[in-house]
C-alpha cells in the first residue's frame, strides 16, 4: 500500500489513569497504527494522573514496550505529588522508568508531532 507521508516522529503525552477513561486505550491504538505505518514513537510521557499507568496491572504497556522498544517515562514530580515515587522504582510495571519534565521537552523538540491523550 502506498504511503502518502514520509516517516514521522511522534512524542505522546498521556494524562489519564488506565481505568479512568478510554484515552489510554486510544493512545495505545494510535501508537500501534503509527508504528504499522512506519512512523517512530520517540517517547511516551505520562503526566498528571497518567503516572498511574506505571503501577497498573494492565499488561498492554509492558507488551507494547517489549514489542516495539517504546520509551515509557513517568514524570517523577507528578508521581511524587501523588505519593507514588519515593523508593517505588522497583514496583514500576515492566518497561517504565521515571524521568523529569526535561524528558518531555526533549521528546517534543525531537518529534515532528506531539499528541496529548486524556483530559
Amino acid at each position, binding site marked *: 500500500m502506498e504511503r502518502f507521508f514520509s516517516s514521522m516522529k511522534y512524542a505522546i503525552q498521556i494524562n489519564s489513569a488506565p481505568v479512568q477513561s478510554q484515552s489510554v486505550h486510544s493512545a495505545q491504538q494510535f501508537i500501534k497504527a503509527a508504528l504499522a505505518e512506519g512512523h517512530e514513537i520517540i517517547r511516551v510521557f505520562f503526566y498528571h494522573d497518567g503516572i498511574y499507568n506505571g503501577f497498573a496491572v494492565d499488561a498492554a504497556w509492558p507488551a507494547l514496550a517489549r514489542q516495539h522498544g517504546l520509551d515509557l517515562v513517568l514524570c*517523577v*514530580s507528578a508521581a*511524587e505529588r501523588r505519593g507514588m*515515587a*519515593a523508593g517505588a*522504582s522497583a514496583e514500576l510495571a515492566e518497561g517504565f522508568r*521515571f524521568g*523529569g*519534565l*526535561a524528558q518531555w521537552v526533549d521528546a517534543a523538540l525531537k518529534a515532528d508531532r506531539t499528541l496529548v491523550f486524556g483530559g
Partner: protein
Amino acid sequence: MLDVEGRTLETTADGFLVDPANWDEQVAAVLAAGIPIELTEAHWEIIRFIRAYYLRFHHLPNNRMFVKAVQKEFGAEKGNSRYLHRLFPESPVKYACLIGGLPKPPGCI
C-alpha cells in the same frame, strides 16, 4: 525532628522542615550541618532567593527552572549549573530548599 537550641522542629522523612514559618538562620545552619554544607555568603544569597521566590510565587522550581531563575536574578556567572553544583552538590534546588526550610522541590527522587 530537628533540635535547634532547645526548639524541636518537625521535619519530613527526607529531612525537610514541615513548616517554613519556623525557619530562621540558626535553623538553616543546623539543616546545612546535616548534609553537610558549610554556609558562605554565596550560599545565603541563593537560599534567601529561593525563600523569597517560594513566598512570592507559591511555587517551587525543578532543577532546570531553578538555574534559569537564578540566571535571571543574578546573571549568567551564577545562573549556571556548575556554579550552583559547587555550592550545593548533587541537586542544587533540593539542598537550597532544604536549608531554606522549604518543602521538597519537584523532580528529585
